[in-house]
């Protein structure tokens, strides 16, 4: 336990979407914390709730979905119970977000300068001229050539990679303490992906910014993050430092994700895809949600799996699984005779 107050602390966050066929628990009992300057990789397949986690933190869950429980402490203040004006003042100012699809994030009918300047003016009393200069600077920082000209352009005049750079410039313009980046490279070409990744990484290091990088790609997170949290069916199933988690994955799902990455394997060795697909969030079992797809499923998996420290890297490496758990009913049963 660190004595320093973390920048962000998420406690037992729960977000649900009522649908005609039941309640979808998109985020269920998610907890993690993040120190200033730290980079967290939030990893999982699509539909596991990682994007909704990001939206829940910023209070951007669209109705009828809503956060039904938990705490999101940002610098010690709970964002979930904060009044809307105070939350608005933090959003886009101290806490910013970059979205997945740059083609959809920028408003198509507003010029780039408008979209940059309004972000400044929403949070500080700044003249248009001064805001314009800041906007110019911000575009330069994300590597856009001839920023003065590009400021007058509309989003459709930019390529996807350029648009994502603009979105990053907007998110960073108020020098936030924390950025939540929701798969910002997924929709881009592979070469552009690397550029954007490098850009975000450089800016974070340079400014001591914290970053939550949401991704389905463990290999990207491996090279970027300090710590990693693996999500499955709305829950974090394993979390820890990148080194501990990737070198000694404790959850079968994490092992599965690693097995499905070509780069981490030797050439010619077979990839080991995880069989099956992510379960529906509507009818999750009482026990482990991964049991259907798990090669090491056993009797205990019908019970809710425990969340415990595995001890590869001190108390910070945690897993939510019956395997290797001291009080596993199976182990007790095995030990009995």
């Amino acid at each position, binding site marked *: 336990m660190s004595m320093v107050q973390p920048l962000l602390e998420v406690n037992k966050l729960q977000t649900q979407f009522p649908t005609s066929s039941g309640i979808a628990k998109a985020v269920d009992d998610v907890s993690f914390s993040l120190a200033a300057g730290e980079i967290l990789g939030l990893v999982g397949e699509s539909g596991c709730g990682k994007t909704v986690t990001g939206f829940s933190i910023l209070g*951007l869950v*669209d109705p009828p979905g809503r956060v039904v429980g938990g705490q999101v402490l940002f610098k010690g203040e709970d964002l979930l119970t904060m009044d809307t004006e105070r939350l*608005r*003042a933090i959003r886009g100012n101290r806490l910013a977000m970059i979205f997945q699809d740059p083609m*959809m994030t920028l*408003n198509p*009918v507003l010029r780039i300068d408008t979209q940059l300047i*309004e972000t400044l003016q929403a949070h500080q009393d700044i003249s248009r001229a001064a805001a314009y200069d800041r906007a110019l600077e911000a575009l330069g920082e994300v590597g856009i050539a001839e920023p003065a000209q590009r400021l007058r352009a509309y989003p459709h005049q930019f390529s996807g990679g350029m648009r994502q750079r603009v979105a990053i410039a907007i998110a960073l313009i108020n020098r936030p303490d924390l950025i939540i980046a929701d798969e910002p490279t997924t929709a881009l070409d592979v070469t552009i992906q690397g550029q954007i990744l490098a850009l975000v990484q450089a800016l974070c290091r340079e400014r001591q910014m914290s970053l939550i990088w949401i991704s389905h790609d463990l290999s990207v997170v491996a090279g970027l993050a300090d710590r990693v949290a693996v999500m499955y069916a709305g829950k974090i199933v394993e979390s820890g430092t990148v080194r501990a988690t990737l070198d000694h994955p404790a959850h079968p799902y994490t092992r599965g994700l690693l097995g499905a990455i070509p780069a981490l394997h030797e050439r010619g060795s077979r990839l080991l895809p995880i069989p099956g697909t992510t379960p529906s969030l509507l009818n999750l079992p009482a026990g482990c949600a991964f049991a259907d797809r798990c090669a090491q499923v056993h009797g205990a998996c019908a019970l809710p799996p425990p969340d415990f420290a595995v001890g590869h890297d001190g108390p910070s490496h945690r897993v939510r699984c019956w395997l290797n758990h001291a009080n596993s009913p199976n182990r007790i049963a095995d030990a009995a005779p």
Partner: protein
Amino acid sequence: MLVFLLRRLLQSGVVLLVMSLLVFVGIYAIGNPVDILISPEADQAEIARTIAAFGLDQPLWTQYLIYLQQAVRGNFGNSFVHGTPALALIVQRLPATLELACVALILAVSLGIPLGLWAGLRPASKSGRAIMGLSILGFSLPTFWVGLMLIMLFSVQLGWLPSNGRGATTELLGVPVSFLSWDGFKHLLMPAANLALFKISLVIRLTRAGTQEALLQDYVRFARAKGLRSARVVFVHVLKNILIPIVTVIGLEFGSLIAFAVVTESIFAWPGMGKLLIESINLLDRPVVVAYLLTVVALFVVINLVVDILYSLLDPRIRLSDQAD
């Protein structure tokens, strides 16, 4: 922009030409143009004069050219009833109709957009549902019946508003208008509201649907993530996007306002060209009917042109694609 304008102007010219051809063919399809252009009571000399003026003894394509020539000069023949040029009659009544249609359009926009936004932002609220219910009624009730009910309520029962005529008119840039005097304004209010009702409903529906769609877009979520105040998100990010289809539809609907003014003008005895049309149809005053038709078609073409220009001004994507080619 200049190229764009020129090309649109050219297109409009073509449409007008095609429509004039259609009307010309229409006249022939109905029967002898002599019957259509010349009053049944005309004497032999007048018939001969008109036949010569319109070249009715010439081959068909020459006749079309002459007809075109006359039409360009604004000559559609004389009204059988009034004995004056048909086009002059229409033009004289045009300001009253345009004033009515403009006021109705302003009503439709100034009521429809805020109500539609409200209903779109709170679709489940009581007020949101009430707005939608009203707009469904506004859609299905026949305009003339609503007009009657307005007269029954405000003229007969309450006696607040006059039920017919334009009232006192004031000259504005040489054109007589009603809205500048209190008396004229009172006369204008009911017909304009009546004419606007359908369009208000239409604008409410469009705005509501557009708002609901825009709210689901990433750019709106991103705008909120930037910490913008909700007023700015709604009135800049949402409104500016939905304004594009709304302006297009409203612009195109202006033509239908002029067409529907026929009904409203007849109910409220508003002295516009729609009322003139009905009188002319009843009196078989064909030159006036033809002149009305071509005037309205010309108005439609102009409106389409204006809408196209407005559309390109509002939507940066259109503007660029036009510059590119």
